[in-house]
């Protein structure tokens, strides 16, 4: 497997200037993580565990205090590579309001493409494609700041899709979406991933993480668990102890196991849960 992202023993601190005297808050504490090309990794962790801080290391917004981060072989400290790194890793930030840059939706989506020097005709094509992908094509001439919360979120996602980067990092992209919107974005992510795009998805929805190829759990600036979703979610107690949870269907089956029912402890999808319960309850 080809390593695509290498995070090597990285620590990161914020200096809180508001405090008097300023204090140092170390929020990543020796994180080591390799992500292979084409992987779909979900990152879970309690509020404040360092997920967004970690994400911003991947396109040089944050630079490690110690240790190194490599993206497609480029050290994120290397200023000459900044442009290439930002082209390689597209990022959807946690709050869509913070990334609106233009006064018209389609210009907003085109912004990054213009910056990286894509041909105008190609820009037109990609912007239309991306807006259709997120179901916001009819809104292309609207003002982004006058959209609803979920609509803004879709625009932010379109902006990154249009860049067609090798790697997409999404920081809670579905937090404001309705259920179908959430499902559609998950479908888009899965589709892109199957076409070879490396995906890092930060989420507080356990059901979304269950659909990734791999789940990384952060706790207080460290990596607590790292493995296949089935393996990670079988550790319900540990997850709950760090502010997280398991998918509802896992919670249900674990409850039944405790009540003495014979079921596997690694059910994480709805389909699997329905099938197992059906086998259990159907008439002989």
């Amino acid at each position, binding site marked *: 497997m080809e390593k695509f992202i290498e995070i090597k023993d990285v620590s990161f601190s914020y200096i809180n200037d508001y405090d008097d005297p300023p204090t140092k808050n170390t929020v990543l504490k020796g994180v080591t993580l390799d992500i292979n090309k084409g992987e779909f990794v979900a990152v879970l962790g309690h509020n404040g565990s360092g997920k967004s801080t970690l994400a911003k290391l991947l396109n040089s917004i944050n630079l490690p205090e110690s240790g190194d981060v490599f993206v497609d072989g480029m050290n994120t400290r290397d200023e000459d590579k900044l442009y290439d790194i930002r082209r390689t890793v597209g990022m959807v930030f946690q709050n869509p309001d913070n990334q609106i840059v233009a006064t018209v939706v389609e210009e907003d989506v085109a912004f990054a493409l213009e910056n990286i020097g894509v041909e105008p005709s190609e820009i037109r094509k990609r912007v239309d494609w991306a807006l259709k992908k997120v179901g916001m094509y009819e809104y292309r001439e609207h003002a982004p700041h006058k959209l609803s919360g979920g609509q803004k979120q879709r625009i932010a996602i379109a902006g990154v899709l249009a860049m067609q980067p090798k790697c997409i990092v999404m920081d809670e992209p579905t937090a*404001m979406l309705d259920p179908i*919107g959430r499902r559609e974005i998950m479908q888009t992510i899965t589709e892109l991933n199957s076409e070879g795009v490396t995906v890092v998805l930060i989420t507080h929805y356990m059901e979304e993480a269950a659909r990734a190829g791999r789940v990384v759990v952060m706790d207080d600036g460290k990596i607590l668990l790292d493995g296949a979703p089935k393996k990670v979610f079988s550790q319900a107690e540990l997850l709950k102890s760090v502010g*997280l949870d398991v998918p509802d269907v896992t919670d249900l089956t674990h409850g039944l196991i405790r009540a003495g029912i014979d079921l596997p402890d690694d059910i994480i999808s709805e389909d699997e849960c329905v099938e197992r319960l059906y086998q259990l309850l159907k008439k002989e």
Partner: protein
Amino acid sequence: MGIIRTEDLTYVYGEGTPFRKTAVDGVNLDIEAGEIVGIIGHTGSGKSTLIQHFNGLLKPTSGKVFIDGEELFADKSRLKEIRFKVGLVFQYPEYQLFEETVYKDIAFGPKNMGLTDGEADKRIKETARLVGLKPELLDKSPFELSGGQKRRVAIAGVMAMEPKVLILDEPTAGLDPRGRDRILGLIKEYHAEKGTTVLLVSHSMEDVAKTVSKILVMNDAKVFMYSDRSSVFAKADELTAMGLTVPQVTRVFDRLRAMGIEFDDEVFSIDYAKDLVLRLLAEKRR
């Protein structure tokens, strides 16, 4: 008569521009005092626009809004007073934090209402504890907090005003599961203790199912339905067609029923689902 009532409420954005949009269209509502109501609806269906009418942030294009029997905007001099009755926690409220410390941010509303320092202090510490903010965070700048921590500060700021009606626009979006449970538990507790009317806008059917007694479904600027939880979630197909869904456990048991497993129960919670499976197994063995 209910605590929140609307008559043919309509709101249009961008009148006279090419982007004219009727975001709320002829809405008639009557919400009883003390109710805890979930508001669901697809992206852009008009939820945020609707609730911003309830504390006079938006003025109806046409139609009327009554709070506690009093018509909003009928008498301008009463507006401020009525606003204190209705506390609104915005979507992404954390981006409206602006004070130097968390403490001062929570204090803003209560001070504005004219509470004494001592009284405000009591409420601030009490609400901070309720929403799970550690005391040492009170002296920090809100800008140093994580997304989820900021959310709690914003919610605490409105709760500390102890309004008669508490409206929260997606209060759990972006919170970790423990934070989500805590905020929902806190909303329920707050509701039970103070008898406050609560309106909870949410995209999480699971959160809605475990928190509210009634559900308002918005679809394309109109009210699709305002009814109790089971009547709403019984309409799984209609909900799906309008961008919504039912809670995951409800879906699991809807599917089992469709596959021929026989039971009459409506399932909205994991605990109920577990008991149901155990009961069905016991019946099967008999």
